[in-house]
């Protein structure tokens, strides 16, 4: 052991009366901010709509929208400001710790689903952008498994890597809780709702189970009533922080629908180390379809730099809300090529540990981006082996309603949007470069994202909320 290591150890043995205590103040590395959106993302894995095989005549006498079950979310105390006392910080910390503390093994099976489904839903993004939310689809499929039975359910359990419906239920509830965050500073809310047709009767036990295990709300109304569609739009806009209003306005409730399942993720985080707007400059991004000019956020930071055979990567931490990984392929390959690289998957699945990494000074240049995609999930789910539920002759939706004959899932879409910017330019210009002290690391790396790349937003619990390929930043 070197003498400086010994000195560090011995400093830890300093006489107690000399060591200051910290209990009078909370940790102050994280500053209170208002939700704004340096890194905002939202997804609707919804409009999973069930239709009868033949047209029905809905009962138009029903009211516009009745709440059958309303999801009750856990309460997290507001993140305390700098002037608040240590007790307030402790109350916040304990509430978050309780939600993150879930039974061992609650993510079993998720990695397989994540890898398989992401390879399917991000493939084919040669020129355009592709964004996918594995967690949102997981929850939507979980609810779909609840309303199906027989081989329809088994196919879903297989793709989710779950042995039975009870295990899926327990895992979904734990995943929901571990990823939930809404404390006035950071937000990550997985929301699900079921929109039923008031002319039909549904099995109450199934609806209660879904509300309980998936924090889902259940509504009833006449799909032919404009007010019911408006209620759905309002719910979607509210749950996605109005980030997807264009997509929401295009969702129409068919008068003949039996059930519409809407599953959303509303995510918003602030960089721990904000970018300075004064350092943002226009530069050229070498997009797949030709060069484009866009704003690049620039900084030089001491940080973990990771690499593989064909890529390099850095992670940008978000205050109390996980982090964003950025993965830049070598010039010889594309982001799509990397989707078959086992090293990339090792990195995408890991929360912190990755073998090829080093703490160095990184010259960072990241384009501001605003990317979205509108994915038809049906074809991808068929490729993953979920087929029976799409066909009236094979779909078994008996847990949903006794009038299930001839019903199938006709539509499954996911609309996703992710934006990042430097945020808080006035505040960031003060602090960005000085946090790590005056020591200069021996090594230096450049991380210039001026060509197509992969990103991933990982939740604080270590699960992938969003993953995407940026071929054109704006």
């Amino acid at each position, binding site marked *: 052991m*070197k*003498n*400086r*290591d*010994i*000195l*560090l*150890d*011995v*400093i*830890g*043995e*300093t*006489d*107690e009366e*000399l*060591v*200051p*205590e*910290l*209990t009078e*103040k*909370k*940790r*102050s*590395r994280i500053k209170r901010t208002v939700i704004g959106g340096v890194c905002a993302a939202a997804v609707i894995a919804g409009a999973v709509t069930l239709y009868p095989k033949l047209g029905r005549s809905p009962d138009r006498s029903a009211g516009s929208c009745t709440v059958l079950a309303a999801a009750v979310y856990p309460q997290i105390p507001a993140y305390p400001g700098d002037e608040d006392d240590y007790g307030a*910080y*402790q109350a916040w*910390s*304990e509430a978050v*710790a309780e939600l993150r503390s879930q039974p061992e093994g609650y993510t079993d099976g998720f990695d397989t689903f994540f890898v398989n489904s992401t390879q399917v839903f991000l493939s084919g993004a040669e020129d355009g952008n592709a964004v996918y939310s594995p967690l949102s689809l997981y929850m939507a499929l979980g609810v779909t498994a609840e309303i199906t039975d027989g081989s329809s359910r088994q196919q879903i359990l297989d793709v989710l890597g779950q042995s039975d419906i009870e295990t899926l239920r327990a895992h979904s509830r734990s995943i929901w809780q571990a990823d939930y965050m809404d404390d006035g500073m950071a937000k990550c809310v997985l929301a699900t709702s079921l929109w039923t047709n008031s002319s039909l009767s549904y099995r109450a036990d199934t609806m209660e189970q879904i509300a309980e295990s998936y924090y889902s709300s259940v509504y009833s109304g006449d799909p032919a009533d404009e007010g019911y569609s408006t209620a759905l739009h309002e719910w979607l806009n509210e749950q996605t922080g109005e980030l997807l209003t264009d997509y929401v306005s295009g969702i129409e409730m068919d008068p003949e629908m039996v059930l519409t399942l809407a599953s959303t993720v509303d995510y918003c985080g602030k960089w721990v180390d904000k970018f300075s707007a004064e350092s943002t400059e226009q530069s050229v991004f070498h997009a797949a379809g030709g060069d484009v000019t866009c704003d690049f956020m620039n900084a030089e930071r*001491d940080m*973990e730099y990771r690499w593989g055979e064909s890529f390099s990567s850095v992670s940008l931490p978000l205050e109390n809300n996980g982090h964003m990984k950025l993965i830049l392929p070598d010039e010889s390959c594309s982001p799509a090529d990397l989707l078959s690289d086992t090293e990339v998957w090792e990195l995408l699945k890991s*929360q*912190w*540990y*990755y*073998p*090829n*990494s*080093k*703490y160095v000074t990184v010259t960072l240049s990241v384009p501001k981006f605003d990317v979205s995609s509108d994915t038809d999930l049906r074809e991808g789910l068929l490729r993953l082996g979920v087929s029976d539920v799409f066909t009236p002759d094979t779909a078994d939706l008996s847990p949903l309603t006794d009038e299930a004959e001839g019903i199938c899932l006709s539509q499954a879409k996911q609309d996703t949007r992710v934006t990042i910017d430097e945020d808080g330019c006035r505040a960031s210009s003060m*602090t960005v470069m*000085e*946090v*790590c*002290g*005056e*020591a200069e*690391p021996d090594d230096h790396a450049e991380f210039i994202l001026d060509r197509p790349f992969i990103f991933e937003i990982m939740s*604080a619990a*270590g699960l992938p909320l969003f993953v995407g390929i940026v071929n054109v930043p704006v």
Partner: protein
Amino acid sequence: MEDIHIIELYWKRDSSAITESQIKYGSYCSVIADNILHSAEDTAECVNDTWLRAWDSMPPQKPSRLALFFGRITRNLAIDRYRRNRSQKCGGGQTALCLEELGECIGEECPIEDRLELRELLNGFLRGLSDKNRKVFLLRYWYMMPVAEIAQRSGISEGAVKMTLKRVRDKLKDFLQNEGVGV
């Protein structure tokens, strides 16, 4: 719960001692571990291990300052973990920077064999510092706190913190050289 009652629970071998420790000192120890490791996962494990280590230590120990007792255990566990991580090349917050800064204070020509002697020397050195300088030095090298946070807690600029640290390190370097430590 009062510290004395938490210590009593440890002495009675009542496992609620661990729950009470987590409630009262969980976030305090997390700050220390996170400064060293900069990893939520490693920090959580270190803090959990702290209560187990405390369980093994009480009895026979009866700490006079429980916060520092736990904090010291967390610090040691986190530094051990940091060293293991470093050997596997996975990084670690402020610790690498602190080590590098402390490297300015001590030579590597002659390996230190008597830690007890170094401890006494260091206690003497720290007692000779002003309260303000000692606090800044220990916030940095006991708690591994980032310079920006020390500045915020102390109500001085980051530049002033850096300058204070530099002066104390220079002073420590001269002190240790005069005592023949590491040279």
